[in-house]
């Protein structure tokens, strides 16, 4: 197994949370529990005579995402028609971008190395199909609510070489998308969809493998990593037999914890791309792109280093806060409350509280602040009382003490926890540790 390495390129689709559709005025509502076909019009139903008019906000947001990811923004871009027949595609073509995407290049840093982006383009989402039983008959129902939702596609270079790197890349990208504020990127709802293109080659080889397997239906980072691991093992087994895995599309099956074959691709599909004649080419001046750059909100990395330096947080605390915008907002509010400042509670203390405590979502920032302040008021307990509690705990747990003496170091934490419980949380914890160690060593 060690002789092989993964080569993965990722395609990520992100539904933008614009107010209206990509090419029509229909409401862009991505909630899942609505009635079918309530947000439709001649344009997103592809009715005869209807024409698409591009959504400016969607275009601006795609450019902003490109700017946030270090892409080059096209001065001239256009939409193209991508043709294929499917019942959820009412025009017989999808309006997408072919050879002149809005953004080219860019990258996402991971601790395993840089993942370069190939391109970012904008297109319209399709409707959805529901295969079901109706009056005892098997039918496929089409729901066009999603048809025409603005959809951004981000395509990477094949720079990902492990499931850990894939996961880290996806998490970072997810965070950037959310910080730019253009999508909820909710994988459960399908507003962020991941499609790794996976191949395996011998370590040290530089040429691209002659095949790739695309995996769809992945709705979490965990499953993305699991699917990659599964595929790695599957490909290696085939390669070991001297064969080449079949080029195909597979789906992640959550119940089986495996990928299953969906569709074998025989050669490249011919989408008969040509420039969308209903939409004039798009032109952007440098000044315009700069106004979009200026409107870009701070990104996660920037927010993290800001919050770390302003409040003396460590890397872990910064990361935990930035990954959860609710916690970050809470932290930022609480840290600046007058009550907190009067009590002189440190930033790291507040951060730890917010990160580690199961905070009742209904409690206000002021209530949380009061709890934090209360916890900081140390009740002084004498060494004698501390030692008394330690002795009691040791006597009550002779086996633990014996285990510790036999070399089981972690048992110390068990004893410590019991002492603290005995003290009902009072007392200086560092002093407890010191006295406990002293007593155990005796």
């Amino acid at each position: 197994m060690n002789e092989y390495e993964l080569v993965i390129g990722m395609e990520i689709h992100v539904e933008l949370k614009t107010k209206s559709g990509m090419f029509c005025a229909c409401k862009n509502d991505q909630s899942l529990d609505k009635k079918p076909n309530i947000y439709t019009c001649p344009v997103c139903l592809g009715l005869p005579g209807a024409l698409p008019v591009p959504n400016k906000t969607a275009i601006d947001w795609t450019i902003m995402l490109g700017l946030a990811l270090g892409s080059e923004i096209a001065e001239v871009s256009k939409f193209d028609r991508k043709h294929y027949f499917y019942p959820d595609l009412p025009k017989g073509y999808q309006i997408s971008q072919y050879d002149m995407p809005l953004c080219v290049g860019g990258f996402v840093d991971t601790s395993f190395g840089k993942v370069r982006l190939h391109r970012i383009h904008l297109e319209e989402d399709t409707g959805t199909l529901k295969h079901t039983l109706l009056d005892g008959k098997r039918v496929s129902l089409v729901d066009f609510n999603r048809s025409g939702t603005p959809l951004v596609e981000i395509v990477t270079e094949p720079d990902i070489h492990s499931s850990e790197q894939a996961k880290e890349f996806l998490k970072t990208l997810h965070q950037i998308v959310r910080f730019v504020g253009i999508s909820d990127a909710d994988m459960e709802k399908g507003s962020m969809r991941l499609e790794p293109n996976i191949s395996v080659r011998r370590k040290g080889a530089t040429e691209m493998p002659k095949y790739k397997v695309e995996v769809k239906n992945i709705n979490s980072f965990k499953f993305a990593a699991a699917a990659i691991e599964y595929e790695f093992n599957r490909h290696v087994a085939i390669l070991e037999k001297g064969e080449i895995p079949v080029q195909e599309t597979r789906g992640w099956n959550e119940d089986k914890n495996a990928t299953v074959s969906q569709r074998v691709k025989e050669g490249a599909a011919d989408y008969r791309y040509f420039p969308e004649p209903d939409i004039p080419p798009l032109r952007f001046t440098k000044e315009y792109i700069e106004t979009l750059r200026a409107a870009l909100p701070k990104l996660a990395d920037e927010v993290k280093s800001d919050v770390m330096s302003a409040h003396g947080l460590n890397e872990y605390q910064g990361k935990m806060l930035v990954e959860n915008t609710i916690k970050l907002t809470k932290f930022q509010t609480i840290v600046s409350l007058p009550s907190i400042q009067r009590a002189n509670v440190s930033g790291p203390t507040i951060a730890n509280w917010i990160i580690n405590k199961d905070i009742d979502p209904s409690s206000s920032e002021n209530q949380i602040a009061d709890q934090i302040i209360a916890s900081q008021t140390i009740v002084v307990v004498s060494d004698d009382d501390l030692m008394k509690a330690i002795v009691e705990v040791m006597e009550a747990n002779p086996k633990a003490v014996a285990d510790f003496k036999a070399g089981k170091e972690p048992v110390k934490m068990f004893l410590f926890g019991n002492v603290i419980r005995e003290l009902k949380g009072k007392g200086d914890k560092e002093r407890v540790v010191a006295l406990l160690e002293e007593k155990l060593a005796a």
Partner: protein
Amino acid sequence: MDSLSSMLYWRQVNKNLLDLSILELAKRLQDKSITSVELVDESYERMEASESVIHAAITIRDKKEALALAKKADETRTAHSSPLHGMPYVVKDGYVTKDLRTTAASKVLDTFMSPYNATVIEKLEAKGAILIGKMNMDAWGHGASTENTDYPVTKNPWDITRSAGGSGGGPAAAIALRYVPFAIGEDTGGSIRLPAAWCGITSLKVTYGRVSRYGAIAYASSLDTVGPTAKTAEDCAVVLEAIAGVDPKDATSSPHAVDDYANGMTKSLTGKRIAFPTEYYKEGLDTEIKAAIFKAREQFVSLGAVVEDVSMPLLEFGVPVYYILAPSETSSNLGRYDGVRYGNGRELFTKETSRRVMTGTYALSSGYYDAYYKKAQKARTVFIKNYASILSKYDAILAPVTTVPATKFGALLEDPVANMMMDVYNVTVNIVGVPSLALPCGFTKDGLPMGMQLIGNMHGEKTLISLGSAYQSATDWHTKTPQGVTI
């Protein structure tokens, strides 16, 4: 045929209001010497008299309904009403309408009721015009003779053994027979102009984007234009003023200001310059048509215009380029009629439509795209430059519309190449996007109408209308109606 004879009788005893110009009708409606009810009534009389033979229409609005609308128009007319208020009109069946079914002359859409109106319909409705019928055409606009319709074929009112032209044969025949004061046609490669020439009426192919395409069933999106068909250049101007303008629903519609097209027409053309492309008058052009346009040239000179020979050597490349661009786009636009929706499937496409869809699918295929579609788009730029160089020095180009007068039925249906070549003078106008006014310029010795076209600069409609109007003030070809037709 009895129905036509009865129409002729009917005309002798009636007022023939529909022979009058739109502005004259509007004046009489304003001074209440006539009513919309009378106008609409006359429209139905005329249709009832000849439709069983001519088949200009696919769908006609219920007469009672139309008369009710006319009555309402008479009641709501004010001094500020549009000249089109209470004016009956028809459209080619390629425009979607809420009230009447829309077929594009294809059985694929036989029962299709659109949930929305095309912008051009909305605009005319806002002016108070009354839609009374959906007119015949080659299905999806594919053809030059209206023979590719899935409904009874439109007959040429001047000779019912001949084609009314296409693709908009229905609207042209309707105007020739004065069913209504005006009609809305659609021109992708001559579909407004060719039938106008064969039916002896006036029509305007507008600048690309001048009139919104929203709700016009797409044939070839980058070439499709929405324009008026009427008796005179002036009538076309009045209608254009009502339908032109930018539309937020059509990203390709032009923000260029709408002119007062019917204003400022003069009888003198002093200072106007007209180009006469010599390549257009060589072999292939019917000698009678050639002679008629040479006479028209003299007419323009006597009106004060300067007419000069120019060279436009790209003519022969127009049809090949058009027959890559248009089928490519149509193969894409017709993909939605896949049998899942609209009731009927692709097996109902005509031979001509299948031919164009297959040609276009091939031209867009990977490996062929560069050699065909992309190359055709490059050629398009060459045409644009060629036209621009001529039109920077001239107000208009005087050209034929067709190589021959109306053909006998079957001639174009049996010869797809002849069908393509029929629009040799027309297609480059769409490829470039400039406007063109087609107007009658005489009759053959057999009594068939002949037409010519004045091709103008981008957004040069007003100039074309003033040229056409001056010509029509000095000639009477446009006043002739098919009364003496032998049937």
